[in-house]
């Protein structure tokens, strides 16, 4: 009798172990992991991404977001196979690297603000022969400033490279630089800290991606279902945000995202998204072919892309977006 009890216990233990192993295996098979490389620190502008990540997780796709120091490092992670999907606009790398990497979704369009010290300059014409500061050589900020100079028939004396909108905003407030270009949160910061000291210069319609998703075509083809789920969620988030910017705040609260955000930054969430939505920063359709064409034109003018007659299919892989949009009502 004692033996049979022991036998029974062992059998139960073995059975539960087997069930556990198989269940784990089935669980692992039904879930897909996407290693996502972000070339930035996670802050309020990443909230749409974080919401989409949470929603994709509920549908069996685990998007593991890793924050890297810069877009270049994130791009290298994708090139070397340490990440599956990267975020940014490394058009030059896509053109020059021998493995096929393609963009497949536009997260957001460029939104920058040329800003000058009122005491020194009042208009674009005043910047003729003057010094300006932009992010880095060959960056989108430099391209925007150069396009504006061309449009207004002016020439800068010199262009200084000061990486980071936050650094340029502080330098502007300290008076070290007099004319630069900032992203929305830092433009708001400068205007709040010294409302009467600076003015924004008007900018024509610049249409290009600020953040887009890219991956190897091999990964996109092998993980169609997971990528479709992720893109569907990103599209739904963009549409919900565009319909009501306050939705981001509600979702953040519901999902418990960026819990330890300082109160000062918390107050900036709604104005940031209201302004971005007003400026059509988040596309309802993932950008697609029109975004691709605008990007090719803009990044060719910026000097990042070389050559004439650039083809969309050499830079973008549109099939995953088309498949995802077909599933989003």
């Amino acid at each position: 009798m004692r033996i049979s009890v022991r036998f029974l216990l062992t059998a139960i233990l073995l059975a539960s172990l087997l069930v556990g192993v198989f269940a784990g295996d089935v669980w692992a098979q039904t879930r897909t992991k996407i290693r996502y490389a972000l070339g930035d620190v996670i802050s309020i502008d990443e909230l749409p991404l974080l919401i989409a990540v949470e929603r994709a997780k509920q549908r069996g796709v685990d998007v593991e977001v890793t924050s890297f120091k810069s877009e270049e490092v994130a791009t290298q992670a994708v090139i070397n196979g340490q990440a599956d999907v990267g975020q940014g606009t490394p058009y030059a790398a896509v053109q020059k690297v021998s493995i096929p990497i393609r963009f497949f979704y536009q997260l957001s369009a460029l939104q920058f603000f040329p800003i000058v010290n009122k005491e020194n300059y009042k208009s674009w014409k005043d910047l003729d022969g003057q010094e300006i500061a932009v992010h880095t050589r060959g960056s989108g900020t430099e391209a925007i400033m150069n396009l504006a100079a061309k449009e207004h028939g002016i020439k800068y004396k010199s262009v200084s490279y000061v990486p980071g909108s936050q650094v340029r905003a502080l330098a502007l407030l300290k008076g070290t630089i007099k004319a630069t270009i900032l992203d929305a949160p830092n433009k708001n910061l400068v205007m709040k800290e010294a409302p009467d000291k600076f003015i924004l210069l008007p900018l024509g319609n610049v249409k290009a991606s600020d953040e887009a998703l890219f991956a190897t075509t091999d990964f996109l083809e092998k993980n169609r279902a997971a990528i479709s789920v992720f893109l569907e969620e990103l599209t739904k988030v963009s549409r919900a945000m565009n319909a009501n910017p306050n939705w981001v705040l509600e979702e953040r609260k519901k999902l418990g995202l960026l819990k330890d955000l300082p109160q000062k930054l918390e107050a900036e969430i709604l104005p940031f998204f209201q302004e971005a939505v007003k400026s059509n920063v988040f596309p309802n359709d993932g950008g697609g072919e029109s975004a691709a064409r605008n990007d090719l034109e803009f990044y060719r003018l910026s000097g990042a892309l070389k050559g004439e007659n650039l083809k969309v299919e050499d830079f973008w892989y549109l099939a995953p977006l088309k498949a995802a949009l077909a599933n989003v009502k």
Partner: protein
Amino acid sequence: MERKNLVAIGVVWPLISFAFFFGLWELAGWWPISVAFPPFSKTLLALLAMIADGSLPRAYLSTFQPLVIGMVLCGIAGIGFGIGMGLSRAVEWFTLPIFIILQAAPMAAIIPLITYLYGIGLTSKVLAVVFLAAPVIVMNSYKGIRNTNPSLIQMCRSFLGTKRQEVVKIVLPHAGALIFAGLRLGLAMGFIGVVIAELLITPTGIGDLITYHSSVADYPEMFAAIASIIVIAALTIHGLERLERTLFPPEIRGS
């Protein structure tokens, strides 16, 4: 004949070593270990192109500016502090901990602090060079003074030499070799400081070439810029080492 053989060995072996290293680099580039890793031949071509179009010489003009200013400051103030610390217990007590802390501090973590205090201009870059180079120069000068052979000092005193004569005729010549070695090691740290500053503060000079070519995926040019600063730093340090051997032969170095 034997001397001729020694010279041949001194030339041939380093050449074989270089050929082996560059050969491995070429293979690794074609294999490739990463699609972003260019072979040696492409890097060399990129380097020549950058020299020909003037971008590399222009970059070095800009990079050498904070390096030279920083090294001159370190040379004057650093050796001064080192000698002061070596000769006076009070100066030693007051300044030694600062230089020990500076020597141990990770510079990449301090640079953001420098930019907050001194902005993004030339001053910050000079300070990055000084913060890295000064501790080595100061500590070497200090140790050189402190390690003066006591019997030489005794000898000076027994000949009724004054304190001034003791310092000028015994201590300083004896410490010269270590002070010079400190300058050489300090320059090596200075090279590290200026590149870190150009990569972390604002991209200028060689830092700009590395950052820009990396951002537009011109990997051979990026590697050429990195290789050029390594070669220039290594050649400068090696040149100084040879000068040091000529100026301070082993019998003077006292080791």
